[in-house]
């Protein structure tokens, strides 16, 4: 098997996912193409050497529909011979895209490829693509569908995380993200997004709320009380988890991932093509794995996917220097830490989506890039990055510096 190496990673800053957000005026295709342009320019790539561009996108409809990868590559001025494909593994799409690109390299069917993702949540709101999961009564009823937030609150209820626990986690995420930005930890990867005139629209994540305190968060109302209690979803959750007496609604806008716009890309290739093109490998992809888990609680996939990828790579938890798990909701990370016995010092060390936001299709590529930057900064070797996924799934990837 050929090894797949990571040669580079870039991401856009994350704009607030509403009309007042700085990236709201930018089309999703433009976000993709600026990421692809940056990857090309930073690496002086002859794009005709690329075998594929794979882009994750969770609501692939409207202006974000019909294969953002191919259209984005064309708009970035990539060689017309480079194909593109869009994929959807919900919140792990960006990481799945990197894994797919890597898989082509590892299987010897490609030399060089890009994996990444995009989501312009301010322009194509979550759920715009419809889908049977929530709205088809047969599906919703028979799979005990409940929205993610109910799953997150169920995790807190079942595994004993209080409102104070999740808020404290969120405060720490904000503080770590602010510290990382202040000290330029993201500088190598974040590219400014520019308008048609070449003027910078945004060069820094704008969702952060540095200085957030426990008191600030305590004042926020739990977000999922109404769907839980009035629309019946608490009952649906308890039917799957009858050992839980009631759902403790602990998640708020303050301890859940932010809605933002953004895109990211990772350049992956074989050792040979790196040598040929004069690219310096930054890390090797040791392995990756996806799993399915119980769909009603939905967000408990990280543990099983981490165990699966560790097993496949013949590694143990102790072989991993840093963990990066998408902060979809605070309870997701708290449960992963509890179940895997991981100290908070070892995971999401520069904060995460609670502070910086979660542009659904792109986040997977962002967590990978973020933890790679941090491995380099700390001069550590191995990292496991991971996301929880809608409908009950998990995708995890282990990288190792070279």
């Amino acid at each position, binding site marked *: 098997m050929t090894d797949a190496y990571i040669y580079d990673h870039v991401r856009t800053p994350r704009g607030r996912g509403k009309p007042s957000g700085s990236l709201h005026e930018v089309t999703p295709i433009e976000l993709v193409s600026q990421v692809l342009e940056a990857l090309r320019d930073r690496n002086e790539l002859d794009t005709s050497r690329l075998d594929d561009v794979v882009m994750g996108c969770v609501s692939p409809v409207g202006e974000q529909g019909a294969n953002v990868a191919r259209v984005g590559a064309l708009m970035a001025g990539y060689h017309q011979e480079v194909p593109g494909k869009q994929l959807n593994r919900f919140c792990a799409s960006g990481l799945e895209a990197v894994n797919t690109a890597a898989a082509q390299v590892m299987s010897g069917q490609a030399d060089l490829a890009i994996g990444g993702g995009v989501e312009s949540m301010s322009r194509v709101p979550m759920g715009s693509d419809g889908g049977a999961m929530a709205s088809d009564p047969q599906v919703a009823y028979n799979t005990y569908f409940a929205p993610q937030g109910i799953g997150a609150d169920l995790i807190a209820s079942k595994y004993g995380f209080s409102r104070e626990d999740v808020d404290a986690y969120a405060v720490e995420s904000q503080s770590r993200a602010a510290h990382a930005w202040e000290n330029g930890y993201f500088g190598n990867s974040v590219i400014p997004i520019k308008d048609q005139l070449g003027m910078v629209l945004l060069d820094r994540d704008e969702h952060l709320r540095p200085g957030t305190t426990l008191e600030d968060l305590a004042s926020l109302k739990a977000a999922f009380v109404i769907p839980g209690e009035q629309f019946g979803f608490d*009952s649906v959750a308890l039917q799957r988890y009858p050992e839980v007496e*009631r759902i403790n609604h602990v998640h708020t806008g303050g301890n859940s991932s932010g809605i933002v716009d953004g895109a990211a890309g990772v350049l992956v290739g074989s050792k040979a093509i790196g040598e040929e093109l004069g690219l310096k490998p930054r890390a090797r992809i040791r392995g990756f794995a996806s799993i399915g888990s119980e769909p009603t609680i939905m967000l408990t996939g990280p543990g099983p996917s981490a165990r699966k990828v560790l097993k496949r790579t013949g590694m143990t938890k102790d072989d991993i220097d840093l963990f990066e798990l998408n902060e979809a909701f605070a309870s997701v990370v708290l449960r992963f830490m509890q179940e895997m016995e991981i100290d908070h010092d070892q995971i999401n060390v520069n904060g995460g989506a609670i502070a910086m936001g979660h542009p659904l299709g792109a986040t997977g590529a962002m967590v990978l890039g973020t933890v790679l930057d941090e491995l380099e900064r700390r001069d550590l070797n191995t990292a496991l990055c991971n996301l929880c996924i809608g409908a009950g799934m998990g995708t995890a990837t282990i990288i190792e510096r070279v």
Partner: protein
Amino acid sequence: MADNFNLTTDGGIATLTIDVPGRSMNVVTSQFLDELTQLIDQVVADDAVTGVIVTSAKDAFVAGADLMWLVNIYDMKLPPAELLKENQKFTQALRKLETCGKPVVAALNGTALGGGLEIALACHHRIATDKPRAVFGLPEVQVGLLPGAGGTQRLPRLIGIQPALELITQGRHVSAEKARDLGFIDQVVPAEHLLTAAKEWLESNPSAEQPWDKKGFRVPGGSGAFHPKTVQTFMGGSALIARETQHNYPAPIAILSCVYEGTIVPIDTGLKIEARYFTSLFQNPVYRNMVRTLFINKGAAEKGARRPKGIEPAPAKKIGMLGAGMMGAGIAFVSARAGIDVVLLDTAQEAAEKGKDYSRMLMTKRLEKGRTTQAKMDQLLARIHPTTDYADLDGCDLIIEAVFEDRGIKADVTAKAEAVLAEDKVFASNTSTLPISGLAEASKRPDKFIGLHFFSPVDKMPLVEIIMGEKTSDQALAHAMDYVQQIRKTPIVVNDSRGFYTSRVFGTYCNEGMALLQDGVGAPLIENAAKMAGMPVGPLAVHDEVTLDLSLKVHKQTQADLGDDYKPLSALPVALKMVEELGRSGKRFGKGFYDYPEGGKKHLWPGLSEHFPVAATQPELQDVIDRLLYMQAIETVRCVDEGVVTEAADADLGSILGWGFPPWTGGTLSYIDTVGVAEFVARADELAAAHGDRFKVPDMLRQMADKGEQFYESTAERSQRSAA
């Protein structure tokens, strides 16, 4: 020649009049549908006919389907393909009618429900009369079915998905005016103008094309998986249905799916989808169970199925109510509401007045909600006479005692009341725990002594459990039943036993909740499993409601009465520990299995897991459900075996109406039939091996299993028997 319809033609207008023979109401039967299908063919083919009026010769248009026919469809066990074909015939006939090119108007001379409204919806125009009591709706969900003749397709296409779902998933009906406002009735006219209005409409050169057959038709308010509003409706709708049904009732989600899937596609495809879901509901015993117990058997019980024959009806004009506490006050209210004078007697005038105040409080609430008038309230209150004087009981047709559950006190009031009560009148005890034959020993005329067990709160609970003492006469029973009918409650008749039928079986439910706790099952799992089984309240919560204190009192009384013969309930130690050691006697005492924080929601007492440690391995959900339901069903079989209960219908009605045994089962015995008697016995044996002898079924049930018998005979067996 049609039996159920008259077809007349007059100057090109065909009038199809529904008139089901031998029935006060038009109801849909298999023959009805065959005839209608044939008549539609005839009218469509007749070139002389240019327009059609559909109306009825009765006071109502059509009241819905014949329930006995519906039950029989299940028992016939037709292959699905055949049943589907049968079901589609009516749909296709209506489709033919609405696409035949001739304008069709429904002249709704009264109530149109179910299949009746579906006929009307397939007409191009609907005119109703302003008859005040007439209602319109699709109530099929209440009998566990869905409107299978286009109702789930035409109503949303007429009035939009959200309003249609509200009517169909809840089975609600509305007045003609409301139906017109919602948009499924076009005109409301005075009754005498109905046919004129129908003719006028036909003569106005109307369109004979339904809106959904016009090009570019869209469902009002949107449809499909992309429309944000409808997505919300279906997403929330599925969860609400899951909450309400706990996955025990198949009809509501099938209705939601018919509307969701059917409105994405053209109506002809939608009708096919509806027919498949409709047919699938006939494969499931839930509808059969509900119709049989809650409609057929309940109706029969209320009409006096168990009333001894040949005894003149003796409705009560005046009753005496001894004891003006919670139960006495409630019985006084329902009696006065039925137009009966009530002498409400207690030991102190103040207490008797307080009992009357209860009626005042209930009526004031109703008055505030506009559900009664001041005059009616005054009349009702004037019928209740609070007193302390037994002489006031003179002239009573019936006396009911609801004094303390103490033999001495009961004997005393019995003697005092009988001194005044005419010799041929009935004396009833509302005891829920003391055997009637024992209490009757204090009576001078035990043949007139009977048990009338009401449930609390009396004004809301529909059941009265009538208990026959050893010496109670048929006449006493007949007269007691006349009274129960007057106050519009549903009677069941049982024989004497400790706890009779309902309290006895209900007690095993509470006990099994405690037994599960004793076995280390987590309290949330116990309570949630009960709700998922379909019980309205978990066994620990309901035990808190009736109080553990009461359970212990009953225990002590029984122990005193039976001495060495007494076998205490298996989980008694839990109740003893809760009450005597932990001081948690139930809700009324502020704490029990639950905490009752002031102003907050109750929640399970966190200390439970400390005193009843939760086992490391928890049972499967289904095991907990089985323990809770099987226990009640097995105790019911014991009641049958001991002759306490003699009719399956009594057992089933009593279980659903008395303590909330899940309606989807059709009742405790219907549940056994639904599981299958042999399967039930096998599972009960497993439970007995794992959890104790209380799950051991009586030999009677084992014999039934061996012989392939069940509690209710199927239609096939019935017809076999009548042929033989």
